[in-house]
Structure formats: structure tokens, C-alpha cells
């Protein structure tokens, strides 16, 4: 699962939704635990695997706009709680 959300709160909600189930207590994934490893598209694990010019074209401006540190911290914390994450 690779997320593109721009803000920490959003990232957290999406990451929680796809790992532990919908935290807003509603929605189709409420209570359903998918347990999938989740990454943010700006994380080094994704960026370093991608083609550099594709990454720059598609993500370049977004990366400058986003506050990546808090996003990475949030996503990593949720990911490390998910069993089966490589």
C-alpha cells in the first residue's frame, strides 16, 4: 500500500484504515484489519527504488510542499506495528 496524502493527520487516518481498520468508526473498512505494509510515496524505501526522473516529474513538487519528517514518523510507527511487514 503506497499513500499519497499530503498532511500528517490524513496520512495517519489512511494508514490506520488500511492496517488496523477504519479509525473513524465508519466506512467500508471499519473494524476490518487488512494488515498490509503501508508506505508513503515520499519515503526513501519508495523513492530509492523508483526511476529518478519519473520520481522527480511525478513527486518532485509535492515533496517540497509536504512536511515529510512527521509523515515518515507516523507511517513508520504504524508500519512497525503491523506484523508481516518486511
Amino acid at each position, binding site marked *: 500500500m503506497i499513500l499519497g496524502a499530503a498532511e500528517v493527520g490524513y496520512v495517519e487516518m489512511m494508514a490506520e484504515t488500511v492496517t488496523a481498520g477504519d479509525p473513524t468508526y465508519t466506512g467500508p473498512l471499519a473494524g476490518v484489519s487488512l494488515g498490509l505494509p503501508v508506505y508513503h510515496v515520499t519515503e526513501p524505501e*519508495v523513492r530509492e527504488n523508483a526511476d529518478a526522473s519519473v520520481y522527480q516529474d511525478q*513527486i518532485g513538487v*509535492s515533496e517540497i510542499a509536504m512536511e515529510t519528517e512527521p509523515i515518515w514518523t507516523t507511517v513508520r510507527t504504524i508500519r512497525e506495528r503491523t506484523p508481516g511487514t518486511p
Partner: protein
Amino acid sequence: MDLHGKKVIAIGERDGVQATAIAAVARSAGAEVLLELNQCFV
């Protein structure tokens, strides 16, 4: 973490990075993109 050969679900946000952009990046890393979903919460 190597994305090559992995299956990916891309969940984008209209004001963040959209799913088509995530998918392009994932494919450039050799991943197979199963699903592209865009979210808009307003």
C-alpha cells in the same frame, strides 16, 4: 525494501499525490499496480 515484482495498491489524495502519480512511480520501480484509488474528502 525492493519493490520489483511486488504488488502495490496506490491510494492518492487529490491535493497530495494522486494515485496516477504513485502508480507511475511504483511501476518505474518494477512493481505491479493492482489498484489506483483517489480520495477527496471535501
